[in-house]
């Protein structure tokens, strides 16, 4: 079997799995088996592809249906695509196990499993398709697949709260899709192609202003999806209302698909048109504004949603710096952030089950009640806050070093701007740590008996979640299903592994960054060159 034959499997397997799951209908065990098998298979296939691509030092390109590029659709797997597919498949598998655990425990009152499994696999197919698309329109289709599935998952169960949150999310996503489609239309009008490799060559020939306009239109569409300030307003309102595993997978993956698309836009599609100063400014603002939002939240789910927005800023900063080291650090940071953010949201789901609340003002004494839960929260929290030696620290240091190295030569923007964004990044990291340790202090450290009439400066500025009208005292703690704990532990272990094997992974990210050279990408799709 040639490596080319493996590439379409990444998208095909989840789609076939989704169809089988629909047929299986109410046979829950069979559905679980199919979903788990499919995602495991994709993880194995993607790992194989990553090894092949890394060994050969060049990407693989497949013309679907034997329609040669640039007319047909090409799927391109280079190191970056393969890394993204591997980490997404692992995270999706972990969250699936968690969701099954929760579903079994809740007797599926919250998540109708017969809908959940097919939709979840279709979401996976969309995510994988976006990562391996070698064609702008195919990227759009990948986005639409994952978005349509995410609409269903977000409004699962159709309670009033979820419909409200879902409507915001859906309308914002629809508008960003319309932007994306218009951008594709205009780019096609200007160049006569939608093939990413060919665009890389042809867009560079256009007048500078035309390039800039098309570039910004495309960035606008991706910026909404990646939740970059000022296009991030929708995220903290819509994510927290979904069931815990779904929020986890959205937070971990969906925004990163947007970030991935921005990386491709900056490195390959518009290699010639430079907006890196804009990216630096936007990256810095995303960090600061996002994390200031997190400071005032009493609800841990909303708090985490704001930190999610804020940490997207680091990746945008890395893309803005745009040097090899900057991109390598960005790729490493994306991988780190996918796992750590998902792990934190899964832990939040456990806290919600265990403490019957997610509000900082109503949780207490969790450390004594469940030391394991405390560890599961503490490690990713320190990791996200950037405490050495965790991967969050390494990723941030990589980004800062890349910025500092480029600053004297004004790479990406004026030196003072790069330094300012680095400072913003350091401050953001500290505030993240403050926000998360405050939650830790209140929910885990503080004794249960201190809850009544507790007064602290830490709690003065927090705002309650608008819909928090539940009980004011803790109800009896519920048992947490083993599967949920196992899945969360596994993801936390993955975040630790990212730290332990940081050297090889960072090297791999570095090689992936070298692969991002436009000439390299073009030669994969068109070995004989293209005009």
């Amino acid at each position, binding site marked *: 079997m040639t490596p080319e034959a493996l590439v379409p499997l990444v998208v095909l397997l989840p789609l076939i799995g989704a169809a089988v799951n629909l047929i299986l209908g109410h046979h829950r065990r069979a559905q679980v088996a199919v979903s788990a098998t499919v995602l495991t298979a994709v993880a194995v296939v993607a790992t194989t592809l990553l090894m092949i691509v890394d060994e050969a030092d060049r990407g693989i390109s497949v013309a679907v249906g034997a329609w040669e590029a640039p*007319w047909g659709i090409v799927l391109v797997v280079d190191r970056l695509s393969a890394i993204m597919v591997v980490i997404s498949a692992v995270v999706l598998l972990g969250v699936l196990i968690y969701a099954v655990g929760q579903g079994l425990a809740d007797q599926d009152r919250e998540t109708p499993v017969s809908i959940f499994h097919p939709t979840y696999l279709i979401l996976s197919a969309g995510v994988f398709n976006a990562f391996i698309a070698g064609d702008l*329109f195919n990227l759009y*289709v990948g986005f*639409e697949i994952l978005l*349509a599935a995410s*609409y*269903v998952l977000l*409004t699962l169960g*159709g*309670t*009033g709260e979820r*419909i*409200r949150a*879902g*409507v915001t999310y*859906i*309308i914002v996503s*629809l*508008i960003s899709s*319309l932007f994306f*489609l*218009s951008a*594709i*239309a*205009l780019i*096609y*009008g200007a160049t*006569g192609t*939608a093939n990413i490799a060919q665009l890389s060559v042809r867009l560079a020939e256009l007048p500078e202003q035309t390039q800039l306009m098309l570039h910004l239109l495309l960035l606008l569409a991706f910026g909404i999806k990646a939740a970059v300030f000022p296009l991030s307003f929708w995220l903290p309102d819509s994510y927290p209302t979904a069931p815990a595993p779904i929020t986890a997978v959205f937070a971990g993956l969906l925004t990163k698909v947007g970030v991935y698309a921005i990386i491709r836009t900056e490195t390959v599609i518009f290699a010639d048109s430079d907006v890196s100063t804009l990216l630096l400014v936007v990256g810095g603002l995303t960090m600061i504004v996002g994390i200031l939002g997190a400071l005032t939240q009493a609800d841990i789910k909303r708090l985490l949603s704001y930190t999610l927005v804020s940490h997207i800023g680091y990746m945008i900063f890395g893309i803005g710096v745009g040097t090899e080291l900057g991109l390598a650090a960005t790729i490493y940071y994306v991988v780190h952030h996918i796992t750590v953010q998902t792990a934190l949201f899964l832990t939040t789901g456990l806290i919600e089950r265990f403490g019957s609340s997610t509000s900082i003002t109503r949780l207490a004494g969790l450390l004594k009640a469940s030391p394991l839960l405390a560890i599961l929260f503490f490690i990713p929290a320190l990791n996200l806050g950037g405490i050495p030696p965790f991967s969050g620290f390494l990723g941030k240091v990589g980004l800062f070093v890349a910025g500092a190295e480029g600053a004297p030569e004004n790479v990406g923007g004026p030196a003072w701007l790069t330094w300012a964004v680095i400072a913003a990044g350091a401050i953001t990291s500290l505030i993240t740590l403050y926000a998360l340790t405050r939650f830790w202090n209140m929910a885990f450290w503080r004794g249960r008996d201190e809850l009544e009439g507790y007064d602290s400066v830490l709690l003065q500025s927090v705002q309650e979640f608008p819909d928090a009208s539940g009980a004011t005292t803790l109800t009896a703690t519920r048992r947490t299903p083993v599967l949920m704990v196992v899945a969360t532990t596994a993801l936390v272990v993955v975040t630790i592994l990212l730290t332990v094997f940081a050297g090889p992974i960072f090297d791999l990210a570095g090689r992936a960054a070298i692969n991002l050279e436009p000439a390299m990408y073009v030669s994969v799709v068109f070995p004989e060159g293209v005009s």
Partner: protein
Amino acid sequence: MTASLTLLILMAVLFGAGITIMLERSLTRVLIGFLLVGNSVNILIYLMSGMPGLAPILGEGVDPDEISDPLPQAFILTAIVINLGITSFMLALIYRSWWLAQLGDEGDSVDDTEDLLEDAEEAADLKRSSAEDDRAIQEVLDASDEEAPR
């Protein structure tokens, strides 16, 4: 590249109208706005394919320069299919939010047992009355049978 002015104006009108309607608060209007803008983007894609030509089928004696560009048409078809799916989901969502607005969160727990009981009673009535009708008809028939030999 040349383009049709009519289509350009149509696209602009659809865009403007669609965005205006999308800004309304009502979800149904947002959906209608989305449909208008979606179609105007489709027209934009079509405009970008250049002047129309022959059907894009390569055969003998067909000059490839004379056929219209098939790729944007494939894009439009895909976009239409995606829009259709999203529209049906939005309609379901609108119905659901209307349902929740009318009945609140209790909407789900409204029991239809009473309705079912009423239906069952009605059905029983119907059956009873039809049984009575049958008996009456049978009596009439019997009576006429008895009369017939005379």
